[in-house]
C-alpha cells in the first residue's frame, strides 16, 4: 500500500510564543504516547521541538482525516492542553508539500531570522532522537538525509546565510575586514550592557587575543574581566590603557562623550598609527563622532550597525529566491525516489540494469573475437550473457515479490535493493563512512 508523508506544526508565524510554549514537545516519545505501535497506521515519526517551531512528521498509509486527529489528540494530551486550541494554530502539509516544507525549514528559509544556522543542528538532533527511539524508518531516514544535503547545497550555492544579521556579528565582521585574523588584536570593553558583552564574547570566540574591561564600579569590572579572562581597570585609568586596544566597545550610561577625537589622536601617536576600530553601542553616544574622520580609525555607532544588519537581511531575502529554486529541485529528486519505492518500477529498473550490462559485455567480447567469428558463436555468446543476467536477478526478484506481500517490510527491502544495485545512480559522499562510524 502507498505510504504518505504528513507534516503538522506550529511556528512563529502561525502561533504566538505563549501557544508555542504550551505545545512544546520536548521529551515526547511517539511510542510511549501510543501514536505508534502494532495496531497504529502510523509507521514512522519525527518530532522537532524548538522555541520557534514544533513539528511532527509522520509516514502512514492512512488518509489525512484518520491521521490528523490521531496526531493532534496525542499532541494535546501530552501537553495537557485543549485539542481545539491546538487545531486553531496548526498547519499541515501532505506528501511533496510536506517534503518542500521540511527542506525549507532545514535550509532556514522558514526561520524567523532568515538563514540562521541553528535550525539545521536542531533538526539533526531531532533526527538522532527518532533514530534512537526507532521511530524513523526508510522514508524518514531518506527524507532527513536529503533535507540535510539540500540545506548544505543551499549554504554553499547561495548567500542566504552568509552576512551577519545581528549587531554583534556585524561588529565582528567589520573587525575582520579591518584587521583580518583577530588573533593579535586586543579589545577594550568600556562600561557594560547586554549587547556590548555579546559583541565582546563574539570577538573572543573569533580568536581575539584578549580583552580589557573598564568600568565605573571596580567590582563589576572585576567580574566581567574574570568572565572574559581579561584585565580589569577603573574608568579613570581607561585613557592610559586605550593605546593598547585595537578594538574598543563602549557602552556606558554617560550623558556626554567620554572619548574625544583629540584624545584618540594622542592615542594614535602612541601606537604609531596602528588602526583602531571603535564600536559605540551606548545611547546617548559615548564617543565623539569626529573620531571617524581620523586616518586609520573607524567608528561605528549602534545606528550604523543596525543599518548594516538591515542591508544584510535584505541581501538574504534576495538570495532566498535562489534557495527556493534549489529546494524545488531537491523535492523533485525526492519525489522520484518516493515513486520508485513501489515494487514494479524497481523490478523494471533491475532488469534494465542487467540488460544494459549484458549488452555492454557482449559488445566488448564480440569486438575481441574480431570480424571472423561465425554467426553461431555470436548467437551463443549473446544467449550466454542475457541468460546469465536473468538468472542472477531471478532470486532477488522472487524475494522482493514475496516480501511485498507481507505487511510493512517491503519499503525497507525495495530501498535496500535499490541501494545494493545502485539503481538511482547515486554517488556516495566522500565522508559517508566516517559518519557511519560516528553513529
Amino acid at each position, binding site marked *: 500500500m502507498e505510504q504518505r508523508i504528513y507534516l503538522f506544526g506550529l511556528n512563529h508565524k502561525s502561533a504566538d510564543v505563549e501557544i508555542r510554549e504550551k505545545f512544546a514537545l520536548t521529551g515526547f516519545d511517539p511510542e510511549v504516547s501510543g501514536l505508534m505501535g502494532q495496531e497504529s497506521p502510523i509507521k514512522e515519526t519525527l518530532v522537532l521541538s524548538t522555541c520557534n517551531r514544533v513539528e511532527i512528521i509522520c509516514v502512514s498509509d492512512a488518509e489525512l482525516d484518520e491521521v490528523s486527529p490521531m496526531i493532534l489528540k496525542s499532541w494535546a494530551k501530552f501537553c495537557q492542553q485543549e485539542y481545539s486550541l491546538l487545531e486553531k494554530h496548526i498547519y499541515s502539509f501532505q506528501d511533496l508539500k510536506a517534503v518542500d516544507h521540511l527542506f525549507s525549514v532545514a535550509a532556514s528559509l522558514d526561520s524567523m531570522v532568515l538563514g540562521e544556522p541553528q535550525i539545521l543542528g536542531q533538526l539533526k538532533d531531532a533526527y538522532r532522537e527518532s533514530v534512537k527511539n526507532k521511530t524513523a524508518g526508510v522514508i524518514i531516514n531518506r527524507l532527513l538525509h536529503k533535507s540535510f544535503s539540500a540545506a548544505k547545497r543551499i549554504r554553499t550555492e547561495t548567500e542566504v546565510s552568509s552576512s551577519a544579521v545581528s549587531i554583534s556579528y556585524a561588529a565582528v565582521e567589520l573587525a575582520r575586514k579591518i584587521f583580518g585574523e583577530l588573533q593579535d588584536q586586543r579589545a577594550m570593553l568600556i562600561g557594560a550592557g547586554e549587547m556590548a558583552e555579546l559583541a565582546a564574547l563574539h570577538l573572543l570566540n573569533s580568536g581575539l587575543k584578549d580583552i580589557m574591561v573598564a568600568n565605573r564600579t571596580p567590582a563589576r569590572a572585576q567580574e566581567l574581566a574574570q568572565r572574559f579572562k581579561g584585565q580589569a581597570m577603573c574608568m579613570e585609568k581607561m585613557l592610559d590603557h586605550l593605546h593598547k586596544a585595537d578594538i574598543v566597545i563602549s557602552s556606558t550610561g554617560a550623558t556626554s562623550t567620554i572619548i574625544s577625537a583629540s584624545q584618540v589622536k594622542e592615542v594614535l601617536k602612541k601606537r604609531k598609527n*596602528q588602526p583602531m576600530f571603535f564600536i559605540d553601542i551606548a545611547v546617548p553616544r559615548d564617543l565623539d563622532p569626529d573620531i571617524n574622520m581620523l586616518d586609520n580609525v573607524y567608528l*561605528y555607532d549602534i545606528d550604523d550597525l543596525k543599518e548594516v544588519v538591515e*542591508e544584510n537581511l535584505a541581501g538574504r531575502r534576495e538570495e532566498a529566491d535562489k534557495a527556493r529554486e534549489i529546494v524545488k529541485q531537491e523535492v523533485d529528486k525526492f519525489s522520484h525516489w518516493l515513486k520508485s519505492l513501489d515494487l514494479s518500477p524497481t523490478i523494471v529498473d533491475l532488469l534494465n540494469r542487467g540488460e544494459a550490462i549484458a549488452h555492454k559485455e557482449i559488445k566488448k567480447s564480440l569486438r575481441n573475437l574480431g570480424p571472423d567469428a561465425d554467426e553461431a558463436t555470436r548467437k551463443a555468446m549473446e544467449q550466454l550473457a542475457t541468460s546469465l543476467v536473468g538468472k542472477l536477478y531471478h532470486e532477488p526478484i522472487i524475494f522482493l515479490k514475496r516480501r511485498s506481500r507481507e505487511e510493512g517490510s517491503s519499503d525497507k527491502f525495495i530501498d535496500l535493493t535499490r541501494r545494493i544495485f545502485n539503481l538511482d545512480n547515486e554517488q556516495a559522499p566522500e565522508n559517508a563512512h566516517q559518519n557511519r562510524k560516528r553513529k
Partner: protein
Amino acid sequence: MLSFRILDFFIALLYFTGALSFLLGLIYSSKKTQDRAVILSIAGFGLHSLDLFLKYILGIGEILTQSQFYISLMAWSFLLIYFFLWWKLKLKFLSITAAPLALLLFTGSLAISPSTLPVPGILQGLWFGLHIGSLFISMALLAMAFGAGISYIYLDKKIKAKTKLSNVSKDIPSLQSFDRANHLAVIYGFPLYTIGVLSGFIWAAFTWKTIFTWDPKEIMTVITWFAFAWLFHKRISGAWRGKKAAQMVIIIFALTLISFIGINFFTETHHSLRP
C-alpha cells in the same frame, strides 16, 4: 625562431586567461574560478621561466643586449614577487595587479621589434646582477603594493562611509593585509631601488666618464628616489600607515612606470630601449 614564437603565444594565452578568470571570479565571487585563475597564472609563470631560461642558455652573449628580454623579465619578476607575497602574507588577492600587469608587459615585449642595447662586455655581469636584478624586484614590489594600495583606498572608503559591502568587497582581504603588503614593498623595495640606481650611476661613470648628465631618465629616477626615500622614512618612523602610505606608493609606482615605459621608449635618452 618559430618554436619560441609558439611558446610565447602559449605564455601570453595563459596569462590572458588567468587574468580574465580572476576578474570574472571576483565579479561573480566564485572561488572556483579564482582558483582556476591562479592555476593558469602558475602554469604561465612556469612556461615563462622555461622560456627565459632557454633564451638565456641558447642566446648567451646576445640576449642580454636585447630590450625584449628585459621587458619579458620584468613581467616575470612581477609574478615572482606576487607569488612571494602570496606565500608570505596569504594575499592571493593581488592577482588583480600581478596577472594583468604581467600580461601587459609580456605581450608588450612580444610587440616591440628586437633591438640591441649597448652593454660593455666587462661590466655585463655586475650590471645585470645589480642594476637589473634589484630594480626589477623593487619595481615588482611596488607594482604589488600599487594593487594593494588601490584596494586599500577602495575598502577604507567603503568602511569609513559605512556603505554596504558588495559581493566584490566581501571577497577582498582585510585592510591590515594590504597595509602589510605596502610595508614589505617599502622596507625591501627602497634599499633595492637604491642599489639599482647607484649601480646604474656607477656604470654610467665607467661608460660615459660622467655621473649625472641631466638625461630625462636620470632626472626622473632621482625624483622617484626622493619620493621613495620620503615614504621609507615615514613608514619606518610609524608616522604613515594605511591610506597615506597607500597613496604614496601609487604615486611612486606611477613615476617608475613613466620612467620605465614613457622615457625608455618615447623620449631621447641614452637609456633608450627603443628599437
